[in-house]
């Protein structure tokens, strides 16, 4: 039943650009998939392993800056730079993870340490001329160049993002059924009990951090190719960190479908309130704040949790 539903959704997702010629619809859906993908990355660490990161822009920024710089400075195709960015994000994730988990930081303390690391990178990028300083980086356009992750037609981006989201979601679904996935949940639910059963909480959390960081960095590369631009605030800023964590929490952290559902709901909400939000700058952040509070207080397991309780 669930498999059939997912297959139908997938068929619709693949078919939409063929049937509809609306730039607006394609763009909106691409961003919904994009944020669902980022949410899936956050979900591994924040949802399954239960380590609430308030600074995932750190990895996003590393991905965006690395592939853009590799292209601008060395002529690397962003398809290659994407993997370099992911590798760097994993390395940084292992360092921040080691520093946090080795000393047993949890909850709010871990969240704040992640925010602090992202801020360090934001301030460093703002003051470093070689990476564009406060202006940021513009990706030089080469027309329609699929080998360089640049497309003349936005529908290409749509399909690339859809494929990335599918791969990430399939990966998370496989993780959830694997030994590692169960170990992450055990560590989230009760670290002492997990350790008593032979699970090394430090290793499990570090693995979650590495997977989460790599995935999030790939999202960063997509962003910079799609918008041809990144600056320190967009890349490493706290607003971006909130954007990343909001959707999985709203949809249901620690579930396979939570980030997708959260992203779809927020995408619809964004479109519904677009006029309001463009007229009053910053209003969408207040809206996010309110939503986050509602989700945390009333929906401890997100909208998915609500649906499950009903059924």
């Amino acid at each position, binding site marked *: 039943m669930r498999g059939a539903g997912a297959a139908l959704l997938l068929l619709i997702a693949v078919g939409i650009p063929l049937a509809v010629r609306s730039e607006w619809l394609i763009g909106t859906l691409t961003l919904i998939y994009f944020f669902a993908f980022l949410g899936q990355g956050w979900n591994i660490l924040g949802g399954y392993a239960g380590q609430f990161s308030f600074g995932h822009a750190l990895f996003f920024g590393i991905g965006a800056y690395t592939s853009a710089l590799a292209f601008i400075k060395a002529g690397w195709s962003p398809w290659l730079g994407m993997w370099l960015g992911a590798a760097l994000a994993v390395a940084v994730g292992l360092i921040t993870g080691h520093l946090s988990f080795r000393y047993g930081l949890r909850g709010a303390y871990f969240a704040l340490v992640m925010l602090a690391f992202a801020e360090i990178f934001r301030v460093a990028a703002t003051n470093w001329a070689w990476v564009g300083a406060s202006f940021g980086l513009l990706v030089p356009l080469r027309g329609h160049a699929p080998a360089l992750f640049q497309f003349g037609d936005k529908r290409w981006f749509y399909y690339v993002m859809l494929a990335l989201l599918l791969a990430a979601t399939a990966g998370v679904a496989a993780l959830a*059924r*694997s*030994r590692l996935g*169960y*170990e992450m*949940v*055990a560590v989230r*639910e*009760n670290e*002492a*009990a*997990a*350790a*008593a*059963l*032979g*699970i*090394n*909480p430090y290793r499990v959390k570090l693995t979650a951090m590495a997977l989460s960081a790599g995935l999030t960095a790939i999202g960063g590369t997509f962003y910079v190719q799609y918008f041809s631009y990144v600056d320190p605030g967009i890349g490493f800023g706290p607003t971006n960190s909130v954007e990343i964590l909001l959707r999985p929490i709203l949809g249901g952290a*620690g579930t396979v479908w939570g980030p997708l559902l959260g992203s779809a709901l927020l995408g619809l909400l964004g479109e519904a309130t677009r006029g309001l939000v463009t007229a009053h700058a910053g209003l969408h952040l207040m809206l996010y704040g309110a939503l986050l509070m509602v989700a945390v207080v009333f929906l401890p397991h997100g909208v998915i949790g609500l649906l499950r309780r009903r059924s």
Partner: protein
Amino acid sequence: MSALLEVRDLSKRFGGLQALSGVTLDVGEGEVVGLIGPNGAGKTTLFAVVSGFLRPDRGRVTFAGRDVLGLPPHAISRLGLARTFQLAQPFPELTVAENVMIGAFAREPAPRRARRRALEVLALTGLGALAERPARALSVGLRKRLELARALATGPRLLLLDEVMAGLDPAEVEETVEVIRGVAATGVTLLLIEHVMAAVMQLCGRVAVLHHGELIAAGSPAAVAADPRVVDAYLGEEMG
């Protein structure tokens, strides 16, 4: 031939409280040993030190010929020394079967086989019918049983049970005694902290008594019950 678990001269102080004071205790392979003593005698502290959750100030702990002091809890668990917690610590969002599966991974890395092993252990511990319930829905008594099942699923050589019968009604105690007897029959060595004396008398070949952090007596249940120091410290006049 040395004992499976050797505790030597173990001391631990918390501020002004001497929780353990020069405790020496051996548990031989295949034994069922009871650890009794009034509240605050240091029993749970001893478990925490042996399982790697606490560092003692002094002393030595050897398991299966290996010095385990300083090893983290997960490493000690992997050597075959499992424990339960006095206050049950289930993974509340997981089902009963999944809880036990987490323990079973220690023996069966593949999820499908771990699950099968978990279901076997649940059948053995009388929780089979509850396999698909979320752990948070269990009563306190059943949570303690789950705690036992989960530790058992790791396939331990030595199992430390911390008051798995506290708060159970007499019928449940009887059931749990049978479960533990079954576990012991499979060759697992047991060290159990217990206040339910009837259960201790039925299960244990040997009993050790802690009082104010010191081991004041050890021997057969009957000998310990008759020891005047034990009677003074713990059992009082009512022990017939």
